[in-house]
């Protein structure tokens, strides 16, 4: 599998480290239901068979975090964005 790093171009996945689902959002720690929202945030995942947004770190490259659109059934890649450019 090769990952199209927005900065470095198409690179072998070997150069990247995987973190996981890029769509989970850190909840508000001051909210009254923070205990629930944090345990969901840390542990629960959609884990879909199909379209997935992944977080990859280009460790052996530009050291950017990259959000990759990938189909988990066949690794077909839809596109990649630098994580800092993804609007939360």
């Amino acid at each position, binding site marked *: *599998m090769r990952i199209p790093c927005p900065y470095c171009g198409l690179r*072998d*996945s*070997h150069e990247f480290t*995987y*973190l*996981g*689902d890029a769509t989970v959002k850190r909840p508000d720690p001051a909210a009254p239901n923070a205990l*629930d929202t944090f*345990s*969901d945030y*840390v*542990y*629960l*995942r*959609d*884990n*879909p*068979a199909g379209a*997935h947004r*992944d977080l990859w770190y280009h460790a052996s490259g530009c050291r950017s975090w990259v959000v990759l659109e*990938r189909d*988990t*059934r*066949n*690794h077909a890649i839809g596109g990649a964005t630098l994580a800092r450019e993804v609007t939360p």
Partner: protein
Amino acid sequence: MRYSALSLFANALMGQKGWKPAWRDAAPKPAYDVIIVGGGGHGLATAYYLAKEHGIRNVAVLEKGWIGSGNAGRNTTIIRSNYLLPGNEPFYEWSMKLWEGLEQDVNYNSMVSQRGVLNLCHSDAQRDAYARRANAMRINGADSELLDQDGVRAMYPHLLDFDNARFPIKGGLLQKRGGTARHDAVVWGYARAADKLGVDIVQNCEVNGFIRDASGAVVGVETTRGPIRAGKVGLAVAGSTSRLTCKLDMRLPIESHVLQAFVSEGLKPLIDGVITFGAGHFYVSQSDKGGLVFGGDIDGYNSYAQRGNLPVVEDVAESAMALMPSIGRVRMLRSWGGIMDMSMDGTPIIDKTHIPGFYLNTGWCYGGFKATPASGWCFAWTIAKDVAHARNALMRLDRFRTGHIIDEKGVGPQPNLH
């Protein structure tokens, strides 16, 4: 028919014409007391123990393909009970005890081979960790031995690279009762034994939804062969769990990842036990046909593809070379992948859920084959009695929320590191 030396002999004389199919390929009935989704080792074992231990015989196992077509038929067949934590070790040791009696119990040769599992260590810190683990095993009634370098040398005098400059072999943790079993035969043995007690094994029947009553309870499943109602529904679909629980709006502490395995060309007897490398992820045994069966890490990213990528192939081959350079010219014959249900703490879940009538068996990571007997036994108990047995009492679904996680490796909620 009971299998025995006599039945073998009689059939040899009759030109092998007396054998009958080992189980019925059943058509689904409109309703059952219990439906188990997934005809892998865990699903079939659950059905068997429901019938045998709890007298619940109006049971169906629904399998989308053929039984054993998932991870049960894809794994590297290692069985062991060398865990550390209280939530795990009693469970896995119970599994080992069930393995030891399995063939007599189900009257099927599952080729359980207690050839010994040897975990190598390469540093003082690792030896200390193994000493602690060995003690934890003994506390829970499992066998364990700590070997020094000479002890390992006596077992494998020529195979291993003892004086490797980077990862010298300092010793190992040996569990002699560990070993391997024939994965397909485990599936077939449980299927045959469950069928004999009245369980329907329904193949080519994919579950794609759930039937719920007005209160929200699960009272059946939608399948490619029509709706089937049930008093209780238990899920044992390994890597496919999230695909079904999303139909119930349940999000789980699970990610699905691909794990690869490899087999070499057939060789003369070379490795008579199971060996694991302590400085990289690599484990190897030799099948009765002579092929070296080995594997390493998961590929490390969410996947339902049932095939892996090259970086792990390279990594596994490098680990093999670091440990046993003599196999460097052996050719790799086949490789394949299976979809693992990686949990957030590396430990499985056997529990009822907040939805009445719905039970969950998942999170096996890449260690679920060894667990097959105990998983079926505990899941059957939980379904039959609506409460966990002491052996799976800590394998709860809500442990992530309450903070009672069981993290053997201590790496935190990062499924690809477990």
